C-alpha cells in the first residue's frame, strides 16, 4: 500500500479549485442580521461547512500560500457572518441543550478564533447532566465529543464506547448499507479521527473492515454518479491509519470538477440559477476541498 502519495497532486488540485470556488461564491451564503436563524439548514449549516473546509487547510499546513490565503479569507468571512462568535453565543444562551454552537465553534477554534464568553458558557454547559444525556444518534455524539475535545472542554467522553455504538462499530454486513447510513458511517470516521488528524483512534478492526469494503461502496456509488457521497467516501479512505486512496477514484472526481472548482453533487442536470446552484452543490464542493486537503496532508506526512 502506498497511502495517499499517488493521489497527492490530484488532491491538491481538487482542493485548490474547490476553495477558490467557495471563496468566489461566499456572498451567496450570508446570514440575516437578526438573531433568528429561521431554517438553520439554509445558511448557518453551509457556513459551518465552509468553515470546516477552511479550518482544515489552516490546520494541516501543507497548502501553498495561495490556498492558505483563500482559507484565511474564508474564515474571516464566516467568522464575520457569525458576528465574531456572538451568533453562536446567543444561540447557546437561548437553547441550552443545542450542540451545534459547540460543533460550529470548534471549526473556528481549530483555526485560532476564540470567543471568551462562549468559552465560559460552554464550560458551564458541558458540566450539565442534562446536556450530557441529550438523546443524539451515535455518530452525532461523536461529533459533539470531538468538538468538545478541540475546544478544550472535558466531557469524559468514552471514545471507544461511542464508536462501538455506531453503525460502523457493529461491523455490519457490508451489503446491507443504504445511502443515509453511508453518510452516517462517513461521519463516524470523520469525528473519530478528527478529520484524519488522529487516524489511530479508529479501532484496528474497524479500520480493517473499511479497507475491505470501501472499494465496494465507492464503486457502486461512483457507478450511479453520487459524487457527493463518493467524495465523502474518499475522505474516509484518506482518514485511515493506512490510507486507502485509489488513484482511479480520485481521477474520476477530478474529471467531474469544473474549471472554476465547482463539483456537482450527482449526475442530475445542474440548475442555471446561481443561488439554487450554490444551495444544491456547495456541500459537494466543501467535501471535495476537505478530501483534497486531508489526502494531501496524509501524503506529505507519509513522506517525512
Amino acid at each position, binding site marked *: 500500500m502506498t497511502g495517499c502519495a499517488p493521489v497527492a497532486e490530484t488532491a491538491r488540485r481538487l482542493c485548490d479549485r474547490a476553495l477558490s470556488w467557495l471563496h468566489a461564491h461566499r456572498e451567496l451564503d450570508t446570514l440575516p442580521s437578526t438573531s433568528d436563524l429561521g*431554517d*438553520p*439548514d439554509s445558511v448557518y*449549516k453551509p457556513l459551518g461547512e465552509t468553515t470546516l473546509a477552511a479550518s482544515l487547510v489552516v490546520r494541516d499546513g501543507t497548502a501553498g500560500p495561495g490556498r492558505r490565503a483563500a482559507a484565511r479569507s474564508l474564515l474571516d468571512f464566516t467568522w464575520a457572518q457569525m458576528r465574531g462568535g456572538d451568533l453562536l453565543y446567543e444561540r447557546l444562551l437561548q437553547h441550552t441543550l443545542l450542540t*451545534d454552537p459547540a460543533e460550529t465553534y470548534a471549526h473556528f477554534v481549530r483555526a485560532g478564533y476564540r470567543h471568551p464568553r462562549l468559552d465560559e458558557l460552554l464550560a458551564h454547559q458541558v458540566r450539565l447532566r442534562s446536556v450530557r444525556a441529550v438523546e443524539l444518534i451515535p455518530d*452525532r455524539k461523536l461529533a459533539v465529543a470531538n468538538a468538545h475535545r478541540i475546544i478544550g472542554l472535558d466531557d469524559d467522553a468514552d471514545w471507544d464506547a461511542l464508536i462501538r455504538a455506531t453503525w460502523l462499530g457493529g461491523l455490519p454486513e457490508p451489503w446491507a*448499507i*443504504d*445511502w*443515509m447510513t*453511508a453518510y452516517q458511517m462517513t461521519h463516524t470516521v470523520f469525528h473519530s479521527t478528527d478529520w484524519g488528524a488522529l487516524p489511530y483512534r479508529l479501532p484496528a478492526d474497524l479500520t480493517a473492515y473499511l479497507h475491505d469494503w470501501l472499494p465496494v461502496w465507492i464503486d*457502486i*456509488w461512483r*457507478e*450511479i454518479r*453520487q459524487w457527493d457521497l463518493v467524495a465523502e467516501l474518499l475522505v474516509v479512505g484518506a482518514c485511515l491509519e493506512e490510507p486507502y486512496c485509489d488513484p482511479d477514484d480520485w481521477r474520476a472526481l477530478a474529471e467531474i470538477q469544473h474549471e472554476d472548482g465547482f463539483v456537482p453533487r450527482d449526475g442530475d442536470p445542474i440548475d442555471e440559477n446561481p443561488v439554487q446552484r450554490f444551495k444544491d452543490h456547495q456541500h459537494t464542493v466543501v467535501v471535495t476541498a476537505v478530501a483534497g486537503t486531508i489526502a494531501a496532508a496524509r501524503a506529505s506526512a507519509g513522506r517525512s
Partner: protein
Amino acid sequence: MLAQREIAGIGVGTDAADIGALMVEPETAISDAPVFTPNGALLLLAAVLLSPKGPKSR
C-alpha cells in the same frame, strides 16, 4: 437412443455462438444501488409514536 436420431435443423454456427453468449452473460447493465429516499423507518416511527414535528435541522 439419441445417437440414432439426428438433430435436424440446428444451425450449429449461430446457435453455438448463442450458447457462448449465454454462457458468459454479463451482470445487469443498470445498477439499482441505494439512493436517497425519505427515511421510511423514521417516518413510520414518527407516525406510530406521535413524535412532535421537529425542526428540519438535524
